[in-house]
């Protein structure tokens, strides 16, 4: 019989192999799913994963959609390393977008170079402020940050809905729930003419490097990792838990806020009731699939962004529901968690030698229970 046996040391090979195994399992499930839906699976694969990348425009879209995932995923992974479970990146992204949008609307028509940097600052500050709420409540009142950050997602989305349908609605917008379009001075510059990829992607790449430096070379990053892996050791060493919680949430919130700013000052160009197809939640998957490592986050973001893009292409070309994307993303995380078991355990077929190390059970007669 096959059974699990703990490895003497965690397997480094499996650390890297498990995201790949998860991706392959996801593809196999996708293959079966396409057959079930009555599509030619190979054709569907081509439409889903290859066709979007056959044009320069498609590659631009791929990088464009990866940008918010990289930003949110980097921020979340820094928090997750310290076991600070910020799952409200979607709300922080929304508040970043609202803050940046507010600046854009306030200075509407002011064609000055300082407007855009101000919008970036507002976006980062908006996300940070929203993340500061769970940080404050956790450090001051011991309130669970998972539930608080998640609740604030709904609050942020309702607030955005209120703004675009109420005070910030474009008076010349035929009653559509959206604000004025931002002016050119309020939009992030495009990298290449004809593609929608903008400066935010380059900043996201820089932040990959900065995140790596923070978590691998700086003492603050080390402190956070110790608190995540061995909370008792961190306490003994005198590392402040409160500081870690604040850092984790502010970094995560700031990056998500910038992602929100980059969405409204990029592909969207205005505020509207929905500004993200769940990037903040998908970033949770990105962080785990990316092994909470900045480079991993980058690769995972590219994969997840391809799933978004493929979902759209498949909807147009195959009539597949775009919800397939969410299904694939959820499956990917499940498979990853399952594959991760082999980092610390291995499969062994043997005839129960484990019994020898469990004398306590064997000695206890049924009557005693």
């Amino acid at each position, binding site marked *: 019989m096959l059974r699990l046996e703990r490895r003497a040391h965690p397997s480094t090979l499996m650390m890297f192999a498990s995201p790949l195994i998860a991706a392959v399992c996801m593809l196999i499930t996708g293959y079966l799913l396409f057959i079930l839906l009555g599509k030619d699976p190979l054709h569907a694969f081509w439409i889903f994963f290859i066709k979007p990348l056959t044009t320069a425009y498609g590659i631009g879209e791929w990088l464009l959609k990866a940008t918010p995932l990289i930003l949110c995923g980097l921020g979340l992974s820094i928090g997750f390393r310290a076991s600070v479970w910020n799952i409200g990146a979607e709300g922080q992204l929304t508040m970043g977008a609202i803050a940046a949008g507010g600046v854009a609307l306030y200075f509407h028509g002011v064609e000055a170079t300082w407007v855009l940097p101000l919008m970036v600052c507002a976006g980062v500050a908006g996300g940070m402020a929203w993340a500061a709420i769970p940080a404050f*409540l956790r450090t001051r009142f*011991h309130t669970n940050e998972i539930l608080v950050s998640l*609740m604030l997602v*709904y609050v942020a989305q309702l607030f955005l809905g209120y703004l675009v349908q*109420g005070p910030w609605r474009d008076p010349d917008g035929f009653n559509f729930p959206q604000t004025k379009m931002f002016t050119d001075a309020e939009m992030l510059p495009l990298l290449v003419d004809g593609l929608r990829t903008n400066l935010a992607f380059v900043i996201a790449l820089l932040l990959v490097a900065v995140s790596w430096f923070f978590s691998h070379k700086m003492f603050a990053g080390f402190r956070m990792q110790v608190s995540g892996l061995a909370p008792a050791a961190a306490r003994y060493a005198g590392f402040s838990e409160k500081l870690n919680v604040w850092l984790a949430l502010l970094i995560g919130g700031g990056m998500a806020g910038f992602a929100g700013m980059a969405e409204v000052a990029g592909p969207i160009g205005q505020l509207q009731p929905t500004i993200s197809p769940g990037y903040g939640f998908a970033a949770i998957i990105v962080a*785990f699939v990316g092994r909470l490592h900045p480079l991993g986050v980058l690769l995972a973001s590219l994969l997840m962004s391809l799933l978004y893009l493929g979902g759209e292409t498949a909807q147009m070309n195959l009539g597949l*529901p775009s919800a397939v994307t969410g*299904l694939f993303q959820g499956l990917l995380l499940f498979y990853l968690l399952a594959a*991760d078991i082999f980092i610390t355990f291995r499969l062994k077929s043997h005839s129960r030698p484990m019994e020898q190390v469990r004398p306590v059970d064997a000695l206890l007669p049924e009557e005693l229970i």
Partner: protein
Amino acid sequence: MSVEQLIPIFASTVAAATPLAYAAFGELVTERSGVLNLGVEGMMLVGAVAGFAVAFHTGSLGLGFAAGMFSGVALALIFAVLTLSLQTNQVATGLALTLFGVGLSAFAGRDYVGVTLGGLQPLTIPLLSDIPFFGPLLFHFDILVYGSIVALFALQWFFGRSRWGLVLRAVGESPASAHAIGYSVIGIRYMAVLFGGAMSGLAGAYLSLAITPLWVEGMTAGRGWIALALVVFGTWKPMRVLLGAYLFGGVTILQFYGQGMGIHIASQLLSMLPYLVTIFVLVLISRNPKTILLNQPMSLGQSYYPHS
């Protein structure tokens, strides 16, 4: 406002509270066994869509509710295999279950958007329902509302009076001790997690078959997360969890009656109330760390592997 006008407000409060109560009861049992399942929202969504789809095709609400429970159990089984047999991190796996449930329900429900069916009707109890005022107030609910009250007493008996309730609590407080005296920690936790799944699935089906008999993508709107908060708010005690559910039911329907009561606030801002109240009560209950420490099952969220 006359007293009679309170009847519909009370009725919708109870209706809004019932799915929260079921989901929170399920999670309560799961957490009492030491397992934190953050996938309630996902299980509710899948329960809602499965319940609706089966009720739509078979024409039977009973089968719909059964399908809701069954799908909740199926999702909980994935969670149980991963966290209990494969020792994965409970927080990460629970989040995965919710994200998966959101995707799966949107995918499975795409054909049912905009379709309606006759929802669950209130029971008419001979004599009792005819009592003036109190009849419509207390004896004009559907069967699952009464079921949630029965569930409350059943849980109180289970935890307080039954042998297996004691064993479940022992597993949650000290899995090593429960294992040492010969109980199967993993087996009991499996049961608790699956029960939680069944209750979440039922709660989801109640949303799509009783409260608003239709399917809308993401229709739970965070109720699964509120149910999780309710368990903390109720300090892992069934009675307090149910009271919390009624409190939240009241807050949820306030947005519908707010305009009528002359509160002129934008509907979006009123809709924030349940989420803000959730945060508020969480702060209230966790302000004193001892409250949580004394009531939370000791092994909550920690993996237990007996053979290593």
